[in-house]
């Protein structure tokens, strides 16, 4: 605790010292500001429970999406992100994409998992309702993502759609670079069985999503 405060202070003072000369120097480049921001962040966060400081180490997708945030994403960068993420998707070995929609509904309702305040031994949720409308029964849904009501019914209960739904839940960046949606399978938020159950929520004709 004491040590981290001291580091934070030192970096604050260092920042002040650097800035002190800034008026005489050219404006820092975007990359320099990014590098500095990361340095300041590393001095300002402390590990807590399961959330270690390595969570500030970005992978290529995160770095590119941060770099282009708030600006237009060049088509070439988007293709690069989608291609590299597509390669990571693990499709089920047995070809079974659809599990239990009732379990999927619970996963869609559950927001815990990955926060330093969460018990890492408990299963994570996908918190789909935080961002998506899914069924008409749940009025407390968010709008960061599109409505998924009638997901399977509108698109058809085909093998192709099941495979797409699996891939989208596993690694959303493969289909829409710099989407807001987490990469649930790729980043290990959900297990393979949980992904299967979430796909069932979207693709089982009996699921409330398709009513």
């Amino acid at each position, binding site marked *: 605790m*004491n040590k981290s*405060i001291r580091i*934070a202070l030192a*970096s*604050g*003072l260092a*920042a*002040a010292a*650097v*800035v*002190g000369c*800034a*008026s005489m120097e050219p404006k*820092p480049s975007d990359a320099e*500001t*990014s590098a*500095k*921001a*990361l340095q*300041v*962040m590393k*001095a*300002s*966060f*402390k*590990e*807590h429970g399961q*959330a*270690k*400081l390595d*969570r*500030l*180490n*970005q992978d290529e*997708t*995160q770095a590119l*999406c*941060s770099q282009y*945030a*708030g600006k237009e994403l060049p088509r070439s960068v988007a293709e690069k992100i989608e291609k590299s993420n597509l390669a990571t998707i693990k499709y089920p070995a047995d070809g079974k994409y659809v599990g239990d929609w009732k379990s999927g509904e619970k996963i869609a309702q559950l927001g815990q998992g*990955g*926060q*330093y*305040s969460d018990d890492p031994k408990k299963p994570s949720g996908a918190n789909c*309702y935080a*961002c998506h409308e899914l069924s*008409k*029964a749940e*009025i*407390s*849904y*968010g*709008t*960061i993502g599109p409505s998924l009501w009638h997901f399977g019914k509108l698109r058809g209960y085909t093998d192709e759609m099941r495979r797409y739904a699996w891939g989208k839940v596993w690694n959303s960046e493969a289909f829409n670079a710099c989407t*807001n949606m*987490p*990469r649930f399978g790729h*980043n*290990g*938020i959900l297990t393979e069985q949980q992904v299967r159950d979430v796909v069932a929520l979207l693709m089982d004709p009996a699921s409330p999503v398709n009513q």
Partner: protein
Amino acid sequence: MRQRIRAAVAVAGFACAVPLALAQGSATEEIEKYRQALQDGNPADLWEMRGEGLWRTPAGPKKATLEQCDLGKGPGVVKGAYAELPRYFADAGRVMDLETRLVWCRVTLQGLSEADAKKNPYGSSNRKSDNEALVAYVTSQSRGIPMNVRLDNPQMKEAFALGEKIFYFRGGPHDFACATCHGEDGKRIRLQDLPNLTAKAGAQKGYSTWPAYRVSQGELRTFQWRLNDCFRQQRFPELEFASPASIALTTFLAYNANGAPFDAPAIKR
């Protein structure tokens, strides 16, 4: 008034009959009614009262009050001070937000150690936080005053630029950044509206209504807490209280809110 009561009763009857058919439009309206009903009688008042007491009561090894604390408008000037924070403080040689400045004053005026002044920034049941009470008092003295944060020196300009980078920084197992939830107009998480902090109107609405009494916690929460808890939900490690990143991000958000009449302590879900 009478008519509105009858209308409410009618809606209630309808909801009883077919609860699942409650239309989204009326859900939003009812949430608005809920928020309205809480406006009158904000428990934040209890924190303001306690904070004013703490401000005026001698404390710490030096047995001094905080009445000579310089929040940027001169020693002892509380009125309107929060509307101009964060700012660069020459005596400290760095940019500070209110909570960092309160630590500074408790160290320099009251003689507390830095560690003691930073202890317990966010209270809980049976462990009340002096920081939260002091923030409630100081911010209440800027109510109605337009936000006016100035990037009038290199330190403030740099804090703003770093804050912007931190706002867009994606990381952690969920790939979240502040911008994930607060980068577009008209979005909601569950039923909670998300202010777009990259646009003027959203930044104004978001920033000018903190600190706030959180009914879900029964506590008054400060802007440092707001940032800390957003990063928790982003699945980041823990943002340290009064850290350089927190000050930079606050500078970015407060500057974007300029012009908005400050309207807190507020009350939120």
